[in-house]
């Protein structure tokens, strides 16, 4: 069984729970940026949470269905359509649906959020690398970024798709305006002027267009170094959610394809519970940081 990528949109990749445990070899963790949305999509089609899904970015994607298969789309809200020789019909969002062979599945541009997740019963079964099927866009580990014409193998599903009570849960997870992101003090607070954490929590930051799977770039009032702390640190290990501040004072929150080490000081660490939300923040969105 296979799916064929017809149009990959801005960036469509295969993702799963990622490959933690290899940071000491220089391998990022990678994985679906919005883990809760990916897990929900899998649950809706009866997959285990570890199954691989497709992650789209802002513009959606168009996919050819080569055999009859059951799907669900979650995450960033988008219009969904199925096209056959007989015409097009709308499909439900965050619910399972079955499409016959020869259908084109169209995931429209994101209406709210950034990344939509397409799960298929049986999961995307590309060859795992270091225990994961995730595409790492920084380290180029795992399958390549998808392009038109890519054919993806689908596994054999055995479970019955679940009912869809989780739709409500899903809607609660997309960002509000401003988005509220909780943080903890980072390991290098002493590299910054006193009051920097207060400045972080009292200012509004705007998501910059250069944001990617590597990091959420923000612009706003510059976070300044302590006078005695110039230059860079010797490279040190970085966690998911670390807020690095380069000399220009504009913070970057590390997402799942982040480099495993870095030399800019970490002022704060975003709370784990808000990382999925960070994956859905669009360029131009306003963020308020609140102490966890």
């Amino acid at each position, binding site marked *: 069984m296979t799916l064929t990528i017809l149009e990959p949109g801005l960036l469509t990749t295969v993702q799963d729970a990622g490959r933690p445990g290899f940071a*000491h070899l220089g391998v990022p963790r990678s994985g679906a940026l919005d883990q809760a949305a990916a897990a929900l999509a899998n649950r809706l089609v009866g997959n285990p949470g570890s199954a691989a899904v497709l992650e789209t970015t802002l513009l959606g994607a168009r996919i050819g269905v080569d055999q009859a298969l059951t799907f669900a789309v979650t995450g960033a809200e988008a219009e969904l359509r199925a096209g056959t020789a007989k015409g097009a019909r709308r499909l439900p969002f965050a619910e399972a649906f079955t499409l016959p062979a020869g259908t084109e599945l169209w995931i429209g541009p994101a209406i709210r959020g950034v990344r939509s997740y397409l799960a298929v019963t049986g999961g995307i079964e590309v060859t795992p690398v270091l225990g994961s099927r995730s595409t790492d866009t920084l380290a180029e580990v795992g399958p390549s970024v998808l392009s038109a014409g890519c054919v993806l193998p689908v596994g054999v599903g055995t479970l019955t798709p679940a009912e869809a009570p989780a739709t409500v849960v899903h809607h609660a997870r997309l960002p509000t305006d401003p988005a509220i992101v909780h943080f903890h003090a980072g390991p290098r607070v002493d590299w910054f002027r006193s009051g920097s954490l207060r400045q972080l929590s009292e200012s509004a930051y705007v998501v910059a267009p250069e944001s990617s799977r590597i990091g959420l770039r923000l612009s706003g009032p510059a976070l300044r170094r302590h006078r005695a702390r110039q230059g860079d640190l010797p490279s*040190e*290990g970085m*966690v998911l959610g670390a807020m690095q501040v380069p000399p220009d004072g504009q913070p970057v929150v590390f997402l799942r394809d982040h480099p*495993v080490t870095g030399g800019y000081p970490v002022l704060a*660490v975003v709370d784990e519970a808000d990382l999925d939300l960070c994956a859905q923040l669009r360029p131009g969105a306003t963020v308020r940081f609140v102490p966890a």
Partner: protein
Amino acid sequence: MRAHPVGPRALLVEVASPAAARSLAVFLRQACPDVQDIVPAAATVLLDGIADHERVGVVLKRWQPTAESVEGHGPVLLVPTRYDGADLAQIADSWGVSRREVVERHTSIEFTAEFCGFSPGFAYLGGLPERWAIPRRPSPRTRVPAGSVAIGGSWCAIYPRASPGGWSILGVTELSVWDQSRIEPALITAGTKLRFVEQSA
């Protein structure tokens, strides 16, 4: 030894040297197998994904760096290298010696891989004396070929695959230092000892 919390599930431990970081990482991997990622670097060890903070605290107090734990492991890996890199002449100038002497110096050192980072399989190799340090190029090259043997500061490294890079290139090896289809994809990990051997063109 100072430990900084990095959010509720991680700890950054500061140590005196890269060798101490490597030694502590080896010790922690055995003493705390439930910590998800243990990442040694130049002067720190990151413990990421801690389930039991209390246990980690107790274990950290027990650690003593020993001469044995700081030494590298295994046999010395020989790296056949063609010394025809784009920056060989500049390195010779900056050391004030001939190109031949650069090759002789570089092949005389036994390096130890201290930690990995930058990209998968990229190991920071220690052993070059500080007085032979070469500053990074003012503007990084957009593409350094795979297998390039290079110097950055007093570190040496082999680029696992083509990537941008700001280090000065001595030469090239055909040894595959990163192959994700292998069970152990990284040929060089923290603690690997190695020596470069001149290979004629």
